[in-house]
């Protein structure tokens, strides 16, 4: 059978979500031709930035964060906005001044405007798995997107079954029993 009439051979299929930024040094897919390190804020070196991003992410989100997803988000957010590293530094500084451990310790001190927008954008990206939610947007996380985790004790993350053949029941769970994630 000629190829014209079959196209189920696994060729040239682009798995955006699985193309991973390795150690801040390699970006595949749509980002491949863009500069890896854009203009960096004066007090943020290129090599420090992924760590700063993860540090801030951990202050904004008190859950276990996947390092690979974080590296990809950091690179993409920095390319989207050259001022992003400066905002990250600014937010870390506010948190340090408050000796913050979790977001509730310092979020009220984040002024409205670019800094607050940056904080919410980072939270949104980790929770939704995308930076923008629109057709054609790159997906950074599906099953690791944090929005699925507060209900993972009951609800299936679609395509990732949590039971087995006829293994589910009609038993619900109380709202107060927040899963650990």
């Amino acid at each position, binding site marked *: 059978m000629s190829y014209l009439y*079959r196209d189920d051979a696994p060729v040239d299929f682009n798995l955006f979500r699985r193309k991973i930024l390795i150690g801040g040094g390699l970006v595949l897919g749509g980002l491949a031709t863009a500069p890896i390190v854009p203009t960096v804020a004066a007090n943020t070196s290129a090599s420090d930035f992924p760590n700063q991003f993860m540090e801030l992410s951990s202050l904004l989100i008190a859950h276990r964060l996947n390092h690979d997803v974080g590296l990809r988000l950091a690179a993409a957010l920095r390319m989207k906005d050259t001022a992003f590293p400066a905002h990250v530094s600014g937010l870390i500084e506010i948190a340090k001044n408050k000796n913050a451990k*979790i*977001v509730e310790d310092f979020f009220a001190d984040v002024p409205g405007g670019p800094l607050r927008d940056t904080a919410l954008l980072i939270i949104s990206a980790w929770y939704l798995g995308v930076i923008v939610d629109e057709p054609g947007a790159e*997906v950074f996380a599906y099953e690791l*997107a*944090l929005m699925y985790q507060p209900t993972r004790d009951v609800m299936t993350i679609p*395509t990732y079954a949590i039971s087995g053949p006829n293994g*589910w029941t009609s038993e*619900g769970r109380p709202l107060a029993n927040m899963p650990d994630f």
Partner: protein
Amino acid sequence: MATETNADVVIVGTGIVGCLIAQQMLDSGLSVLMLEAGPRVDRWRIVENFRNLPPGLRLHFDAPYPPKPWAPHMESYSDAAAAEYLQLEGPNARAYRQGYVRYAGGATRHWAGICWRLTPEDMRLKSLYGVARDWDLDYSALEPYYTRAEYAIGVCGPSDPALQWPPIRSKRYPMGPLPFGPGEQRFTDAAARLGLKNVPAAQARNSRIAYDGRPPCCGNNNCIPVCPIAAKYDAATALPKIEAKGGRILANAVAYRVETGQKNAIEAVHYFDSDKHSHRVIGKIFVLACNGIETPKLLLLSKDERNPKGVANSSDQVGRNMMDQPKLVAELILAEPMWTGVGPVQGSSIMQTSQGEFRSKHGGALFRFNNLARGAFGGVAAVRQGLVGKALDAEIRRLSACTAELTIEHELIPDPNNRLTLSNKKDWLGINKPNIYYDVGDYVRRSAKEYSVPLVRKLAAELGATDVQVSTEFTNSDHIMGGTIMGADSAASVVDIDCRAHDHHNLFLPGGGAMTTGGCGNSTLTMAALALKAADAIATQMKSS
């Protein structure tokens, strides 16, 4: 043995109808060639396409199936995109935005797998209630084919007649029912308090055991838009079985003309490949099973000197009587968690509300709890509130667990003014796009106003809803019916009770288009039953010739 240009039976379309017929033809010793307009794509690719959709697109069931330029289908991600292929007009144009995909395997790739049968009363609306048409085929004649269809595709369902719909069966389901999740159980309990029975759906999903080489359902909650493990029947699973029996399947082969010859017999089907080269395929019997829109479109495209209104269209009924089950949705906010996302995306319905003497005045309605996991819904809504920390997590959990969707699907009656014609707009290959005028009619509007919406509000109240928003615009259910309507009278219908075209002895048009009326439930099992009935007729006809 079929070649790429010749077979005993040429089948256009690789959905459930085409595949069921192909398998039976091959078992009868006949050669089979299938033409599929769209691509043939592995399951894992569709699964990865789905997972790589941004959250806002994951409820657009066509989104993991990007159309090829030569085989366009409606893309729902925006109104502008949706208007590209299907040309829709009329008071309820929005309600005919049908979401079929032109891929090998057809629309069963993203169906929910629900397998309701019609009831005897659903097939006798004219004689019982004085509306619409009667089928010229009664339930007892269709029942053996329903049973065969259930065993062919693997349907699970309850063995207790009190839970069956309708409980008129010659044989038990091949598998037992699937369990309910918490939301579906709460809905069932609330309905019972109102005197209504929410019954387990007959579903083409393997329950507890493997069936026909496919594994049991393990609750991936992604039947729509793709079952990742093929526990749900879809026709893509039949394709390798057809090839193993010697059938030939040509993907990316877009049929654009049916050629007639002496005695108005069908001589050939012409198709374009993806390089716009034309090919001619010949056979003894031709089956058009391209779905309820593409089949009438192809017939109208094929008009010639013998058939000036289109092939099979001496009655002028091709493309008329377009039907679906117009849908309304109630969005609920609840004080207590309901929980969705446990088990398959659909698993039950209230069916008794589809029947009654009221059908002389308005249509019946089906009520269903949507069991799609609402984690993404809760997540997106909570993030947009700008919440952080524990407040964000708590709001995601609340919005995901304490919201729900109830769907109403209405019975619509055939109206010749609901009509598919050829648009002047052309697609990439230069083929006319389908144009459809659609008005759900007063039969449906009265049902919504006087019957279904008041009842869904009662159900919502019984569930403890603190807020209920019922949609005011009808939308599509993707159950395309009527465009090649069946009947004994060749002046008023397109096909006979075997789905054979009145005008062409060797042309069969099985599927939703042949359905005389549609009731309230998903049309797929009836389409499958009609396919098997047509297959019997084809085998008999081939033997006698």
